[in-house]
Every structure is written in C-alpha cells, then in structure tokens.
C-alpha cells in the first residue's frame, strides 16, 4: 500500500469499484422479480392453498391441517421485508371497518400520534407527509357506508404502491416511537450493545427491514391492537405455536408466520 501514495492524482481510487452500487443493483433485480409475481396484498384463499407450497413435506402438511382446524382463510402479502407492517395495518383496518365505534377511536388514536412523534424528536416536516396519507386512507375508507365497498377500496389502496408503502412507513414510525417512549422496557430485548434509538434507526424505520418479535410487541402497543401470531415451522410438534401480543390481550388480528414471512389469517 505504501508505494501507492506515489501514484498521480488521476489514478487514485480507480482500482476501487463502487461495491455499494453493485449490491444495490442486485437487490433491485431481486425485488423486481418478487413484485412481478406477488401482489402487495392478495385475495382471500382457503388454508388448503398452502399445501401446494409443501408438496411432499409431511411436517408442514400436518401443520397446515392443524391450521385449517382453526382458520378458514389466508391472505398472502408480498415478501418484501415490509410484510409484517403491511399485513398488520391491512388486517387491522379491515376488521375496524366492521365496527364503527372501534374505527372512530382508532382514528382519534392516529390523529394524536403525529404530535407524540414530533415531541419524541421526529422531524415534523417529513412525519407529516406520511401522517397525511395515513389519515387520507382512513377517511377514504371510513366515508364509504357499505362495509363491503369500503373493504374493496381498502384492498385497492393497499395494492397501490404509493399509498401502501406510506401506510407501512407510518406504522414503522409509530413502532419506532413506541420503542423509544418505552425504551427501558424494550432495551432488554435488543441484542448487543445497541441503544433503542440505534436499533430503531437501523431495524425499524428503514423500509424493507424485516420484523422480529420486538417490532410486533411495539407495533401492537402503538396501535392498541392485540395480535396473535401463529408460528408454523419445521419443529417436531404437530400443532403450530401461538403467541398473543401484547401478552394476555384478546387478539383482533391473526397473522401466520413462516420463517421470514407474515401473511394474514381469518377465523
């Protein structure tokens, strides 16, 4: 390395390829392939539709049977790293449309959330952009009297990338806010010596970052909505494992977790 110092200015750094851009390019290619084959939020499908993914895998086929004994339908979401946030927001709004009072109190919760985020130090200018879209979606589906029509509109908006992603961003910000507001509690769930704020900047706020248990805990607390996650994996038991978050609440949203991905479940 020492003698490289002698080379002239024009040649410096030329041997270094811009690795970051190569990685980003490859990542974009993979994302394109996924987005061409899977809708952001799919249609309702029977639980048995999962069978085709596990043609001769008896462990999973047994677990799908167990799942089918409790749930009627599954709704797939695009595996783009945002699946938990997208699935949770969609499923929550969908069930709120069935109950006017719950919808109204949720609307109020969202209305108050912007100021809490700004108080926590989030930049008002950009938070507003996402907040406005979240509220716009609530208003657009909320003003439709016929519940089925409202659900159709929700489905349409969630498959429009612009709206759908902004909904995801806002829930990510609310989740980050929840983690930071309650950092004493959440800090023990974070591995390594990262602070809660660091964790939020690296793992919660950026789009396409996958969600863990801690994201779900904070998101369900922020949305004041209980969620049941049904874990389906290669484990030996015949039944799937269930977790309710926050602990002890009655879940209003049910999600199916298979390693690396969340879909929505319907009783």
């Amino acid at each position: 390395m020492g003698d490289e110092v002698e080379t002239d200015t024009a040649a410096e750094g030329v041997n270094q390829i811009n690795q970051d851009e190569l990685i980003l390019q490859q990542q974009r290619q993979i994302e394109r392939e996924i987005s061409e084959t899977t809708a952001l939020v799919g249609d309702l499908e029977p639980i048995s539709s999962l069978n085709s993914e596990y043609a001769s895998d008896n462990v999973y086929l047994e677990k799908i049977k167990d799942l089918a004994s409790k749930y009627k339908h599954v709704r797939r979401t695009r595996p783009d790293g945002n699946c938990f946030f997208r699935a949770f927001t969609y499923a929550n709004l969908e069930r709120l449309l069935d109950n006017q009072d719950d919808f109204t109190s949720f609307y109020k919760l969202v209305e108050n959330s912007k100021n809490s985020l700004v108080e926590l130090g989030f930049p008002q200018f950009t938070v507003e952009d996402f907040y406005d879209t979240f509220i716009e979606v609530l208003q657009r589906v909320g003003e439709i009297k016929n519940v089925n029509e409202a659900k159709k509109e929700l489905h349409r908006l969630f498959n429009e990338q612009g709206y759908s992603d902004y909904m995801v961003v806002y829930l990510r910000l609310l989740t980050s806010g929840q983690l930071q507001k309650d950092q004493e509690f959440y800090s023990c769930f974070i591995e390594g010596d990262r602070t809660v704020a660091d964790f939020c900047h690296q793992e919660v706020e950026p789009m396409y970052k996958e969600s863990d248990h801690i994201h779900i805990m904070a998101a369900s607390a922020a949305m004041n909505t209980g969620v049941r996650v049904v874990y389906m994996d290669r484990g030996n038991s015949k039944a799937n494992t269930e977790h309710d978050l926050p602990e002890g609440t009655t879940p209003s949203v049910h999600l199916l977790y298979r390693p690396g991905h969340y879909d929505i479940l319907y009783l």
Partner: protein
Amino acid sequence: MSTPARRRLMRDFKRLQEDPPTGVSGAPTDNNIMIWNAVIFGPHDTPFEDGTFKLTIEFTEEYPNKPPTVRFVSHMFHPNVYADGGICLDILQNRWSPTYDVSAILTSIQSLLSDPNPNSPANSMAAQLYKENRREYEKRVKACVEQSFID
C-alpha cells in the same frame, strides 16, 4: 403526473428554499424534478474550507422509501468518496430512513466532509493519508478545493 415521489420532492424543494441550512443548496434541474443539482460549501476549519463542491442527486419513484443516488460532480479527495463521485455514507445505503429529506441528505454529506470515516474507505489512499499523513492529506484536499473554483 403527480406521484408520491414527485409530490414529496416539491415539498422538499419548498422547504429547502424557505428554511435553507447553512452551507448547502440544491434545486431540481429545469425539466426534471427527479434529478437535482446541489452545491456543498466546504465546512469552516476543515481542509475543504472555501471549496464549492457540486453534486447531482437522482431520485426514483420509490423516494422517500428508498434513498436517492448522490454523486459528487466536482473532483473529490475524501476517504468516503469513490473515484466516480459516489458516496459511501450509511444513511444513503442501509441506514436510510424515509424521514430524511434533501435538506438532511445535504447536511449529512457536509458533516462527512468534516468527519471522514477512514474505517470504511471508498478511496483507500485518502483513508490511509488521513490516518497516517495528515499534512499530505490536506495538501491533496486543498488541490480539490482549488479545482472546485474552476469546474
């Protein structure tokens, strides 16, 4: 057609005009809001002082969910700037947050000029000189500063 990205970039531009941070400026090019030109003035008390460094910022329709591509057009000698002007800065890659706007991007790059990170080098010679031969490093940087007047 107005898309979320374009709408947001109009907002970013408005804010940059109404509340401009010190030492940076930027504006969309005449016929394309997705491509911006920007200038960062070298921060005081650093070897970059007095330099006027030009950059381009290219946005995609996925902004602000994904970061734009930011590149120095002016020749730079800096541990975290590639030969092609590309910038190695965490918030432009894996630590990007949709809460950043153009203003935040430019001020972050400005602070990168004051505080290089020689442990993740994009230009290994600049990183090495920065760590081991600060006088030579500053000499090289000052050459860039002078060149920035001509560009």
